[in-house]
């Protein structure tokens, strides 16, 4: 028998449930209880594209150190789904724990010798306590939560307080839930021993908040001054539009008239499809409103024609692309970073688009607001590239911050006064040498400044033209504008290793928390790697300087074809041999262990000898 794992505030728990069984609420309470005890937690919901009946998991990284990405491996499996029993049991670390419903006896072949099995007669307890099937279904989850409260040393008062908060609007439900919690707790206390995994009150959470990226991005859009949202439901982006709607209802009403008096300082339309949603964004952007849509890869595919129009006709707008597993329908409820290329070069002809690559909810908020400034400044479509892991999972992050003195950048809009003063208005004229022309909004002036917007070629004064030289001039100006964008987008963040090294690693987006832990792990093994986090496309010079300064650079991505690496090679003329692919694309968020192992392997030294290979 392998020695049982013992750990305080540092382990991985995974709940295996059935979709639609009401487990999400209990699992959420479990996480919040740990956070209220001051212990940091990273939580990931792994769910099927289905309403009821298919397997779902909830994986929780408890880390007093503050590692919030997926570590890899499971220390405690709460196995509540017979469908996935075998694979759930197989996933447990040697010395780990299996918690299961022991109402029905199971053959010994269904267990492993190297784990500790903890059985709770959950169904029996539930059936004994409740006659109604609906109660049995829901409260079963609270009963196992009660047992885990005892087994892991969670403070019961914390869970009870959370239950009171959860059902504040329906107080009649509180006693039943407290009772169920008690049933589980008492049974575990009377029949089971506490596990080697323990939770102990700490002070490592501080004033951090627990929020998902879609909510953060929706709030960012509010602070960024977005007034028009046209969207179409698609997993995993839907909750972004819903968050924007909820925050607008709270924060964006004329105080005189209120929500029911025609006082909405926003317009939200659920469009008939993704094409209509980006069309509305295009129309609103042309007419001077800050407009956005949120979607996922299939939506971006549908929007291609309008994105090309916006690029060429130079119309501002924002697309939040919450990436999921592709291609086609792929894995709709699993995460990937596989829209990088299709967004960067969206539409036919020669196009390039600005991408913002947030690492988590904080940057979803910041970039969510910034995207509207960039869209207006650059008069183009800006993509904010989230993914399912970041968008739909709650992350522990620093509180949102906003500078009260910040002024929204509306870009180059020519006013009636400027026109009246004799400004030479040419809609596509590069007046300032930065490739960005001035624009007028419809109805600016009775006789000056009007122009015809079109997707066909035109001269600097917006006059239709099929002259080759005129077309080339325009396309070159668009490249100049893209060059200007480099100075406006968030720069990369470089983290130097403690010692000089010829190895570098580039990563982006939701890989960040796992990368934090992997880099710390490598350092503990004596391996030095410099790290650079890309935060936007176009790539600014520092990224290529970083690559040039290292013999070998690993590019860590969550897609099959190393899309960011391709973009780096394409845009920077980098020798492909110097960029090593490190790819995770099974739909699950990348783990620290995977990154650490791949980097160690790529450096040619076994993990056991990693400490000797530092240059």
């Amino acid at each position, binding site marked *: 028998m392998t020695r049982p794992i013992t750990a305080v505030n540092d382990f991985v728990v995974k709940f295996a449930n059935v979709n639609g069984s009401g487990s999400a609420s209990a699992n959420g309470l479990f996480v919040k209880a740990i956070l209220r005890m001051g212990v940091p937690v990273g939580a990931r919901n792994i769910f099927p594209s289905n309403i009821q009946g298919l397997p779902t998991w909830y994986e929780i990284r408890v880390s007093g150190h503050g590692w919030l990405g997926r570590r890899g491996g499971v220390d405690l499996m709460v196995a509540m789904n017979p469908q996935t029993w075998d694979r759930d049991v197989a996933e447990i670390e040697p010395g780990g724990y299996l918690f299961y419903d022991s109402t029905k006896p199971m053959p010994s072949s269904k267990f492993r010798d190297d784990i500790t099995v903890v059985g709770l007669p959950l169904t029996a307890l539930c059936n004994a306590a409740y006659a109604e099937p609906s109660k049995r279904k829901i409260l079963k989850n609270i009963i196992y939560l009660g047992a885990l409260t005892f087994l892991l040393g969670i403070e019961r008062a914390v869970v009870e307080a959370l239950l009171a908060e959860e059902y504040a609007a329906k107080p009649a439900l509180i006693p039943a839930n407290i009772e169920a919690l008690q049933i589980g707790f008492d049974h575990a206390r009377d029949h089971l021993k506490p596990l080697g995994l323990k939770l102990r009150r700490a002070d490592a959470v501080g004033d951090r*908040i627990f929020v998902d990226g879609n909510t953060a991005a929706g709030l960012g859009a509010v602070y960024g001054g977005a007034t*028009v949202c046209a969207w179409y439901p698609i997993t995993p982006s839907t909750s972004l539009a819903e968050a924007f709607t909820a925050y607008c209802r709270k924060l964006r009403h004329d105080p005189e008239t209120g929500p029911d008096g025609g006082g909405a300082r926003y317009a939200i339309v659920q469009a008939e499809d993704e094409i209509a949603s980006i069309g509305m964004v295009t*129309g609103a952007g*042309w007419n001077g*409103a800050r407009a956005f849509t949120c979607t996922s890869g299939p939506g971006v595919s549908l929007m291609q024609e309008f994105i090309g129009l916006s690029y060429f006709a130079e119309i501002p707008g924002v697309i939040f692309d919450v990436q999921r597993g592709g291609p086609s329908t792929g894995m709709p409820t699993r995460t990937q970073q596989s829209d990088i290329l299709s967004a960067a070069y969206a539409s036919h002809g020669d196009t390039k688009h600005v991408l913002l690559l947030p690492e988590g909810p904080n940057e979803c908020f910041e970039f969510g607001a910034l995207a509207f400034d960039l869209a207006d400044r650059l008069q183009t479509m800006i993509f904010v590239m989230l993914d399912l892991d970041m968008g739909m999972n709650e992350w522990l992050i620093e509180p949102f911050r906003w500078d009260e003195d910040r002024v929204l950048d509306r870009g180059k809009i020519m006013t009636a006064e400027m026109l009246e003063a004799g400004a030479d208005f040419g809609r596509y004229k590069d007046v300032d040498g930065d490739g960005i022309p001035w624009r007028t*909004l419809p109805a600016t002036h009775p006789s000056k400044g009007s122009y015809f917007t079109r997707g066909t070629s035109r001269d600097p004064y917006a006059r239709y033209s099929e002259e080759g030289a005129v077309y080339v001039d325009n396309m070159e100006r668009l490249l100049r504008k893209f060059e200007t964008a480099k100075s406006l987008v968030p720069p990369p963040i470089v983290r130097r290793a403690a010692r000089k090294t010829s190895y570098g690693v580039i990563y982006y987006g939701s890989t960040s928390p796992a990368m934090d832990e992997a880099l710390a792990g490598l350092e503990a093994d004596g391996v030095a790697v410099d790290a650079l986090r890309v935060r936007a496309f176009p790539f600014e010079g520092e990224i290529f300087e970083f690559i040039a300064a290292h013999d070998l650079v690993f590019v860590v991505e969550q897609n099959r074809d190393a899309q960011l690496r391709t973009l780096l090679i394409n845009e920077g003329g980098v020798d492909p041999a110097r960029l090593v692919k490190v790819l995770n694309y099974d739909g699950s968020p990348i783990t620290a262990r995977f990154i650490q192992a791949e980097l160690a392997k790529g450096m040619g030294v076994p993990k056991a000898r990693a400490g000797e290979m530092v240059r």
Partner: protein
Amino acid sequence: MTYIAKPQFHHPSLKHNALGFTRRDYEGKVSTLCAGCGHDSISAAIVQACFEIDLEPHRLAKLSGIGCSSKTPDYFLGASHGFNTVHGRMPSVLTGANLANRSLIYLGVSGDGDSASIGLGQFAHAMRRGVNMTYIVENNGVYGLTKGQFSATADKGSKSKKGVVNSDSGIDMVGLALQLGATFVARSFSGDKDQLVPLIKAALTHKGAAFIDVLSPCIAFNNHKGSTKSFDWVREHNEAVNRLDVLMARMAVTASYEPGSLTEVTQHDGSVLLLRKVAEDYDPTDHAGAISYLQHAHAAGEIVTGLLYVDPEAEELHDALGTVKQPLNALPDEELVPPVAALDKINAGLR
């Protein structure tokens, strides 16, 4: 589409409207459509209508899709901002533009290829949303720019210029608009300016989704024997249900008509639509009756024209959304960006 601007010269005797504009102030660039194209007649009718209702030219935003008809916004209202979008998807762009600034007048111009095929979905949803706009389909039953293929509005059994017989049923955009909830639905003929100009005037003053299907024969590819969209066919089968006059709110209603031959419809803004009945039993405010009338006329081989339906109390999209009266594109930072205190409260709620 052209870059050839018309000369600015105005004859001193040109009539001025209440705003001091002449008809020439509502014109655009020189048309490059085929000589005699019905679409140019529609452009002329738009110019006339805008002049007559004293619309400030720059306060109108004109949007179109792709095709012969969609080129036409360049040929009228040169002082207005125009947007030639993508094929069939003008309605969504217009909707977005309208959301950004509800204070402008929106005119969407489209064709049957644009609106009845790739754009059918967007056409439908713009109508059912009640976007405050005038949506004109310049309907010739044929693809002109690609030289003569049937469009989805071509009648079953009609013949192409090459003699091919259309085997698909034609889509009746008017019937569709009625079913979809458009609150102003009319049909006219590019060759009947007396009917078309008042219809455009009425549509532009209507609050809500106003749709006009204008039969506009393509002289190059669909004006031959066997076509049901030719000038001759439309003239011979035209059944006008009414004739329209529009009295703006500021005008005193002094006209006198014989009882029984006139319907007055007062719109939200006080403008009055005076409908001289041709079909005595026709009531343009009866939605079900309009659908029934249309179907019976179609069965009889008639092309019904005139104002077929109007809801004078119609609401539009902004009413449903409850947006502020000010244009969203003009709201200042302080009305858009919540205070930091609100963010602190949100942070507190996420712990």
